[in-house]
């Protein structure tokens, strides 16, 4: 039997994570996402906030439990910081920023339009028909939406089932 205690550096002392810290993690995640043009990893966010990657992981899990984030199942990195997707999806969003055109990904057509709303910007969603794959470009200009060709949006699941399988939804 090995009675050797682990080195202190490897011991995680349980703490009560403050709502303020979780909110700092959440807000800084979005800010770095926009700054980098991609989702930061836990280590990058930890370095930015001057804390440890396990602290970020713990905050992520609590934010995910509160449905404020969706995490990748194996790595625990962010999958969705809604409306933004951390991974490419069939809903590419192009917006015009101070440094030129930026491309983002939404988790669905609702979220793709949400990216444009969140950025308070004009923009375009490069999508395709869920049935036949025909290209559909949705534009938002001065708060007015249009598409070419015309399109309609289908919500397959009722609201009460949205979080049963958020990745499918």
């Amino acid at each position, binding site marked *: 039997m090995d009675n050797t205690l682990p080195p202190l550096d490897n011991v995680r002392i349980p703490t009560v994570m403050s709502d303020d810290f979780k*909110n700092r993690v959440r*807000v800084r995640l*979005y*800010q770095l996402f926009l700054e980098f043009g991609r989702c930061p990893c836990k280590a990058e966010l930890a370095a930015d906030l001057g804390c440890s990657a396990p602290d970020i992981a713990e905050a992520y899990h609590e934010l995910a439990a*509160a*449905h*404020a984030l969706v995490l990748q199942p194996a790595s625990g990195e962010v999958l969705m910081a*809604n*409306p933004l997707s951390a991974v490419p999806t069939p809903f590419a969003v192009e917006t015009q920023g101070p440094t030129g055109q930026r491309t983002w990904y939404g988790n*669905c*057509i*609702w*979220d793709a*339009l*949400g*990216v*444009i*709303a*969140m950025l*308070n910007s004009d923009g375009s969603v490069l*999508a*395709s*028909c*869920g*049935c*036949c794959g*025909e290209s*559909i470009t*949705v534009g*938002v200009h001065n*708060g007015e*939406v*249009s*598409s070419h*060709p*015309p*399109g*309609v*949006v*289908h*919500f*397959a*699941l*009722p*609201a*009460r089932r949205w979080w049963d399988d958020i990745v499918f*939804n």
Partner: protein
Amino acid sequence: MLIFRSEDHIDRWCKAWRLERGETLSLERTWQLADAWYRDRMRADWRRRTVDETHELFRSLGLTTDFWRFS
């Protein structure tokens, strides 16, 4: 939530996936929903809406059927 070229394409997709038809929104209504839902998401004072607040938001956009209720 997917976009389709027409209602007929939604029907074909539902049939292919053996799914019941859900609800269809115009792009204009979807944009209004996206704007109301996400415009404040990056703000430090953002918090999740309560169920009642969410129902009120849906109601304000004319989304009043049981489909849009969490309980």
